[in-house]
């Protein structure tokens, strides 16, 4: 009993301490994260925290640990601490809506960070996802404007797999229609798993007798399986392969020449842009005055909302230095096994 009372006291003391800090350091920016199980969110957090603290404001956050229920409770807790802006990485974009309304009702601004939820009062900041597919297709058309194309798509249950494919098709449609390029294999890959992608690619090569001129793999993990399958047929390096995520191993493959492009969504950039937008909102600026804001209504229900869509960076042999300079990968990691003089960034 005594212990319990102490705990309550400690809790009260901590809450008081927090609120004092908040008042002392100007504005408070809060983030409700959906999970830290995936590596990238730590990068996002570091970027946001750095930008917020650099502006002399304070940063508070919660981790929903992959639970929609916990996230709702987290947001209630954040509201009670009266921050100026709450960024939300929604675990479930529908289940989160009542919490977002609660944020608005409390007079707090909300930002949908990377994951969309359709609330007209929120600002949506993310990478242009359909654009990723578009960039992949553009990059591959540059090096292989005609021939047999294979499409290694992601998991059938993930809408992103279809968005990416749509983006690719926007670019490739004219060439497909004119017969310059031909779709010879198109498969979904269970769980985005590289070993499944490898098997699908092997079977694609068998069924076409190696007559594949380009492979559009929807991410870097699957690209590793695709490249392994091509390598076993002596085709690695001659058949262009796409990917996305900027995996370290993929950037290395780009340097080695076995992968053509890895479309990289720089989380540091996203975090920085979001933090700056949040600070502007906290200072009472109007949404429309923030740089890059445009209307977006491409969501599931077509709700129109303000948004900032960042363009992802295609990493090719020629601009690997961008990822190195951003601190995303070291030169040693990117250039392991690369022949001297073959890649600019590797010297």
């Amino acid at each position: 009993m005594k212990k319990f009372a102490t705990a309550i006291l400690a809790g009260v003391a901590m809450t008081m301490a927090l609120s004092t800090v908040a008042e002392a350091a100007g504005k408070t920016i809060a983030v409700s994260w959906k999970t830290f199980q995936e590596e990238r969110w730590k990068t996002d957090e570091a970027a946001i925290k750095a930008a917020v603290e650099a502006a002399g404001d304070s940063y508070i956050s919660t981790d929903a640990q992959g639970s929609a229920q916990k996230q709702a409770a987290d947001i209630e807790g954040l509201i009670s601490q009266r921050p100026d802006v709450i960024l939300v990485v929604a675990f479930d974009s529908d289940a989160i809506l009542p919490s977002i309304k609660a944020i608005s009702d409390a007079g707090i601004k909300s930002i949908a960070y990377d994951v969309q939820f359709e609330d007209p009062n929120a600002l949506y900041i993310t990478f242009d996802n359909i654009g990723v597919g578009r960039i992949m297709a553009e990059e591959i058309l540059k090096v292989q404007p005609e021939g047999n194309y294979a499409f290694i798509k992601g998991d059938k249950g993930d809408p992103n797999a279809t968005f990416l494919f749509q983006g690719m098709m926007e670019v490739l449609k004219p060439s497909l229609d004119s017969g310059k390029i031909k779709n010879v294999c198109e498969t979904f890959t269970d769980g985005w798993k590289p070993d499944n992608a490898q098997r699908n690619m092997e079977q694609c090569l068998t069924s076409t007798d190696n007559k594949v001129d380009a492979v559009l793999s929807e991410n870097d993990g699957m690209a590793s399986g695709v490249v392994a399958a091509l390598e076993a047929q002596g085709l690695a390096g001659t058949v262009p392969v796409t990917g996305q995520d900027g995996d370290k191993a993929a950037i290395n493959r780009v340097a080695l020449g076995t992968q053509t492009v890895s479309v990289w969504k720089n989380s540091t950039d996203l975090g920085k842009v979001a933090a700056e937008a949040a600070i502007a909102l906290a200072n009472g600026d109007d949404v429309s005055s923030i740089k890059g804001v445009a209307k977006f209504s491409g969501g599931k229900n077509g709700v129109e909302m303000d948004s900032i869509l960042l363009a992802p960076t295609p990493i090719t042999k020629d601009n690997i230095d961008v990822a190195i300079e951003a601190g995303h990968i070291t030169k040693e990691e990117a250039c392991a096994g690369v022949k001297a003089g073959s890649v600019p960034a590797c010297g």
Partner: protein
Amino acid sequence: MSKESASTPAAAPTKPLLSRFLAATEIDTRMLGMVAALFAIWCAFDIYSGFLRPNTGLFGGAFLTPRNLWTLLVQTSSIAVMTTGMVLVIVMRHIDLSVGSMLSLVAVAGAVLQVFILGPAIGVGHPAIWIAAVAACLVLGTLIGAMNGFLTAYAQIPAFIVTLGGLIAYSGVAFLLASGVTIAPMDKTYKIIGGGVPESWLGPTWSWALAFVACALIILAVANGRRQRKRFGFQMRPVWAEAVLATIGSAAVLGTTAVLTSYPWPFGLIRQYAADNDVTIPEGVENVNGDAICMAADRIVRCTEGLIYYTGYAAPVLVALAVGAAMSFIATRTKFGRYVYAIGGNPEAAELAGINTKMMTVKVFALMGFLVGVSSIIASARLDAATNALGQLNELFVIASAVIGGTSLAGGIGTIYGALLGALMMQSIQSGMALLNLPAAFQNIVVGTVLVFAVFVDQLYRRRVK
């Protein structure tokens, strides 16, 4: 004294020829059924794929081609290795749900060791790297397996729970170990185990040498069995039946070898090899459908008569075959195997016969873990990368292969060769449908249906045999 004991002469002469043949040769009819089903599936895939896009297969498709069969065996290797261990686990009335996650963990650990730790420390490509990585995978797998076994046997937590916990936990450890990133590329020598580079192909000469050794061993085994029975004056199989058995076994080995040695190296690799080793390329006439390479007017082209190499057995297939042979030996010819089956038949009886059943549980799980270590090496070497996604859900395919191969989940019954056939069947279906470019969702439906149907047929078979 009792009626049934008197009524078991081998085969009455009035029975039809086929059953007399089966009785005399003592062939497992269940296995015969599986082989027939497998061939039926293969033919169906070949016919259907030929219908979509004509190729050089037996029925004009792409499935029954040396290339596809060669690939199929390579694709099966990793699962096949684990399946042999799963048979013993299931025979002992346990289950191991953690093999897929364990594979991720072990593969990632092996990759971290060779790429992040040893590579920078002693230089990429150092010969100690692959040896250390292989040893680390085997030891780590064995230890994790032993831990599963220890918790099951001594802490008396059901294996289902222990390994369900492992299924969830080990993938988490794998994630943390590599912070979720893909680790690549693997060591050059380590990669040979995966079967994706010419160094891992045995070539026709050694493949045939190996095949003849295998045939000699088969004949020796048949002869030895006969000698043993003679030694104690037991009733023997007719000589013709022994000859048939030896012939079937040898024909299977030679046939497989013939198929595998007729798959030529991919065109690009022949050219690369010729360039790297200063091999003279003969003059020839261009033929874009040829498998060989020729010089035609100072240009390297594809042709039918020219420089050509054939693959033969690939390293992962050899590993899987060796594991299959070793596990069959362990299961049927050693005390350890005998105890596994006895414990599966009646754990109490085994305990009362003085068998340390707890220690046996630890050993069987440790063996399973060791085999997961072997599989993790094959899988990561083959992919030339390791990620925490590698191996996920493999437990389902491993268990399904064992069950399709005739292993009873009630314990006590199961064979290694059956499980290997089961693994080959599962992989055939998946690869065949990928070849036909069927949607992944459809593949899942078919694989699931086949699993349930196979067990249903098995039940019918067992009831009839009884």
